[in-house]
């Protein structure tokens, strides 16, 4: 009887310990794991910095620049020559992106940008990037705008155009 009680206690102790460790390991870093799965983490090779893009746009062989954010920001200021596709986070914007992509070569250099919101929270840029990758585009880069188009492009004195 005494041995059975001891075994029972030991079993409960081990189960409790195991459960606590599983919860601790599984719960605490869950948020960070989610971040690590970001397909476009800052510093990754798919990203292009504003100054680098501004230089690239001066060359004869300039990339196709697609804007995938809300129209009101595009109308106020956008990268000269950028095409307004519309917010890729919405079905109508995604449809327009798909339609535009069909007329581009899969190896064409394409840069997409949004800048509507802080980078981590942009609802448009990741769906647009995923769609172009899924469609087989091999030379897509994403303009890294950490805060917004205003702060990270226009306020730096980089060229802009206005109008729809």
């Amino acid at each position, binding site marked *: 009887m005494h041995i059975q009680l001891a075994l029972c*206690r*030991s079993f409960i102790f081990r189960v409790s310990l195991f459960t606590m460790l599983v*919860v*601790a390991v599984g719960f605490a870093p869950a948020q960070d794991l989610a971040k690590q799965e970001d397909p476009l983490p800052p510093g990754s090779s798919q990203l292009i910095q504003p100054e680098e893009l501004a230089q690239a746009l001066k060359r004869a062989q300039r990339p196709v620049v697609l804007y995938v954010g809300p129209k*009101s920001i595009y109308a106020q200021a956008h990268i000269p020559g950028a095409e307004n596709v519309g917010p890729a986070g919405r079905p109508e914007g995604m449809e327009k992106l798909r339609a535009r992509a069909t007329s581009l070569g899969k190896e064409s250099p394409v840069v997409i940008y949004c800048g*509507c919101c*802080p980078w981590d929270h942009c*609802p448009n840029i990741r769906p647009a990037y995923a769609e172009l990758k899924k469609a087989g585009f091999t030379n897509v880069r994403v303009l890294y705008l950490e*805060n917004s188009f*205003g702060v990270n492009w226009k306020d730096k004195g980089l060229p802009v155009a206005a109008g729809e």
Partner: protein
Amino acid sequence: MNRRAEIRNLLIALAVLCLVFGVGLIVRQRGHRDSARFSRDSLSNDSLRTVPDLSFSDLNGRAIHMADYKNKVVLVSFWAAWCVPCAEEVPQFMALQKKYQGQGLQVIGFSVDDDAQELQSFYRKYQMNYPVVPSDLKLAEAFGGVLGLPTTFVIGRDSRIHAKHNGATDFSELEQEVVALLEGEQN
């Protein structure tokens, strides 16, 4: 394993658990802070932009005239229901509105490119206590341009813009600005 050893092991396990949770929490909060970077433009006195006497209709069809807010401190928040950091700010704007409305504060939300139904649904869900106006290009340009969300303008009793917050707002700093303007200090 005797009882004392069991208790000791259990305490060690609890300590490890607390440590793991603590580290997880710190890392998570640091990540949140990093993702909530903001910048603030403080406008010098000689370049303060005066808000024009605009008129517009809010979500409920009520006419709003900026001229009606002369002698009030106004927080204008350009935001969108689809913008996560903007939506996170709404309860904090509501709290400021509630706390300082008696002293002359008015918050106004200008929604950017929101679907009308989604906006109405958001407004009802949060029971927002300040007017929300579907904005347009003209409105954004009247404030000197809004090229990213959220963007918040702090307007003094003199109808001039005293500060512009780009990105997620630091509400402790914003509250200090509001209090200073309500008390008549001009920064």
